[in-house]
């Protein structure tokens, strides 16, 4: 049974988690903990299991071995109701935004409010407007997600993830595919959410600019484990050849092109 949260327990604790997808081992005993209010960025090459790790935190996947605790609760042991309560306190930004095609942008952002709170329609409209304003979007409520650009979709999706004022945010490649200016807007927004609202977050990215901007700590995922972890300054001055190769973006080094 889930025990209550201890005083010293970090918000998110991942302990020796292993996961195979089909026959392929993706995570091989990975451990990572994120303190309350901390922003951790996970870097690593495509296909190293960064997104898979995020899906374990939010309970979309269950570990083959090991444990994932969020807010002191063992995610894989939660029943439907407890998992729902936990998820209301978490927000996740998906790679492609994952806005629902069948709903307008405004209804997308308002959906969590309509499903999980008793607030009236007028209040929903206000919150939708406020959240969209927060991510720099105005007057898109009536538009269909399919008519938005990639960057607008991602920002609308971020507004939706923030609708219930989560205390934990998970970002799956928040800036991939965005122009540098929109990327910077998103980076600043993520940083601001953390500083002003004390949101705990894990972001997955291979955009190093973004990583330096939003991270308190950067962890590099390699071969299913945390290969290196440290502050942005520590990672930048690391002498580990794999880390150096990755942050410099070089095809030469211990990491082979795939």
């Amino acid at each position, binding site marked *: 049974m889930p025990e209550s949260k201890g005083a010293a327990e970090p918000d998110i604790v991942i302990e020796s988690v292993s996961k195979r997808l089909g026959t392929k081992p993706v995570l091989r005993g990975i451990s990572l903990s994120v303190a309350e209010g901390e922003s951790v960025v996970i870097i690593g090459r495509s296909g190293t299991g960064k997104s898979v790790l995020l*899906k374990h935190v939010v309970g*979309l*996947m269950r570990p083959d071995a090991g444990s994932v605790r969020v807010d002191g609760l063992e995610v894989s042991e939660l029943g*439907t109701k407890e998992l729902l309560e936990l998820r209301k306190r978490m927000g996740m930004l998906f790679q492609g935004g*994952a806005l*629902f*095609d069948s709903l307008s942008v405004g209804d997308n952002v308002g959906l969590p409010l309509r*499903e999980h709170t008793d607030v009236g329609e007028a209040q929903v409209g206000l919150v939708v407007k406020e959240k969209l304003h927060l991510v720099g979007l105005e007057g898109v409520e009536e538009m269909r997600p399919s008519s938005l650009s990639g960057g607008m979709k991602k920002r609308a999706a971020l507004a939706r993830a923030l609708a219930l004022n989560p205390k934990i945010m998970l970002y799956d490649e928040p800036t991939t595919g965005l122009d540098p200016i929109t990327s910077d807007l998103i980076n600043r927004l993520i940083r601001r959410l953390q500083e002003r609202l004390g949101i705990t977050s894990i972001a997955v990215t291979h955009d190093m600019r973004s990583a330096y901007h939003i991270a308190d700590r950067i962890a590099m995922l390699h071969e299913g484990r945390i290969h290196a972890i440290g502050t942005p300054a520590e990672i930048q001055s690391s002498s580990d050849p794999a880390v150096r190769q990755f942050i410099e973006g070089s095809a030469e080094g211990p990491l082979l092109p795939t």
Partner: protein
Amino acid sequence: MNETDAETLPESTPFRFILNGLRDTGEVLLLAGDVVRELPQGLRKVPLVVQQMVAIGLGSMPLTLIVALFTGAVAAVQASYQFRDYVPMIYLGTVIGKSVVIELGPVLTALVVGGRVGASIAAELGTMRVTEQVDAMETMGISPTRYLVVPRVVAATLMLPVLTIFADVVAIFGGYMVAVLTLDVSGHTFTSGLRLYFHLRDVFSGLIKSVFFGAIISMMGCYYGLRSEGGAEGVGVATTHAVVASCLLILIVDYLLASFLFRVLFA
């Protein structure tokens, strides 16, 4: 999302085929259990159910009616050919009426709607799955079963009998038109034959079957759609599987239900 021992076996061994079949059966039953559990909550989403009823019921109506019209027409042609010299033409209406309400109406409607609706459900939910919309729904604490599956299953289960009633009427009308216009059978002869040995339980048996067919079509669409993976190709595979599985199950369940209804219940 699903790893089973089946996936560690080499491709296309008979074992793998059997294990996949067992896994699919088990997972469909689990999904059906979820649907039953989520039914009371899902039914509160009236707009979603109505939206699906329009898409599945009204949307399939033209196709169903055209198929029914020609089914009745060909039934009249074939039956009159078989009857010639042996059976009096008064029985033409009888045999068309009975074969339509018991078998042709429900089964052909289900097969046609299965192709149309099963494919569209699988493609829509499959696209939602591969673009992470289903994952997003779950992380928002919204059950995809309640929000996506229940409205579709409820709508299809309610609308298939309705479509079948329309199909029955139009198919008999098609048979009547062919009989009167081209087969030299008078309208009175046809309708008298239709009334002869007419039992309401025959119509009900067809409608009971169509309820099951509606559940099969929507469940297969939802199941294969939700478990699709790997982009556009995966959605295509899911769509094919949904339609093939619907058609097979419709015919198998048709046999089982016919055996039960006519050998046990109405025997």
